[in-house]
């Protein structure tokens, strides 16, 4: 069984990590997790985002959820918010598309135009 002791060790490791970089969140990823989003596969999308972030140890990315936004036919919907102003909304997202968005947009800073529904820059 995983113990809380392991978490305390993990905490030390994370603290070491944090010393090396400033860990304020720079990027926010928001997944639409309303009933229609869930029915269309938003949980798998969320899982892939979390796995990619964990794998790459991206401590400056915050992942969160929101409810229905009235974009039911475009679900699953994912917002990528960079800093205070830039907001990109991606639609009809799948786990494979997530991998591309993480690689190209989150890591390299280049939005994946073909999946974007709206962008406010």
């Amino acid at each position, binding site marked *: *069984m*995983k113990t*809380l002791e*392991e*978490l*305390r060790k*993990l*905490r030390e*490791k*994370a*603290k070491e*990590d*944090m010393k090396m970089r400033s860990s304020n969140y720079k990027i926010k990823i928001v*997944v639409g*997790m*309303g*009933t229609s989003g*869930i*029915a269309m596969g938003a*949980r*798998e999308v*969320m*899982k892939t985002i*979390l*796995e990619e*972030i*964990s794998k*790459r*140890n*991206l*401590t400056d990315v*915050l*992942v*969160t*959820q929101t*409810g*229905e*936004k*009235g974009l*039911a036919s475009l679900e699953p919907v994912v917002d990528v918010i960079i800093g205070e102003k830039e907001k990109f909304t991606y639609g009809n997202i799948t786990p494979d598309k997530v991998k591309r968005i993480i690689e190209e947009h989150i890591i390299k800073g280049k939005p994946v135009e073909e999946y974007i529904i709206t962008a406010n820059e």
Partner: protein
Amino acid sequence: MQDISLHILDLIENSCQAESDLIKIEIIMDKNEDKLIIKIADNGIGMDQETLENSQNPFFTTKKSRKKKVGLGIPLFKQNAEHCNGKFIIKSKKNKGTTVIAEFQLSHIDRMPLGNLADTFINSIIAHPNIDFEIHLRYKSKETTEFYLSTKEIKEALGDDIPITHPLVYEYLKENFEEGIKKTYMEEL
């Protein structure tokens, strides 16, 4: 919804939006009584009697800002449970919280699979770091096993400097839930 874990996720989202700070989830697989019971209890804003009755009606939603005036989450889950020789109970008190209990006949041929519970729980925990979750899985047969996880304990062990959303915590949660799900035989049905 293809499975029960997705319905659970949908209900947890309702609880989160009701301004809860503690959500208790209990899943009981009772082979002796041939029942599968799912309980989700929150301490959020709750509903008055009228909203409570309406919540089971698909053409009702409290979400004023959207065009689509339907709310299918609760009615679908209710229908699924009742169709499987089970029942669906929703209790709520204004400013106290809401509890949903869905009961299925475990062996019913139309019962949906449980689905991936680990994904549902991890999703909710990481997306709502300010809400505490108490998750209890129980298996009852000739032998009885159980699994319990409290995010409050995890947050205490992590201390103030590491948030539960930290990427390193994800693997810990995943392994923890996978072990618990295996121990309570909830992975394959």
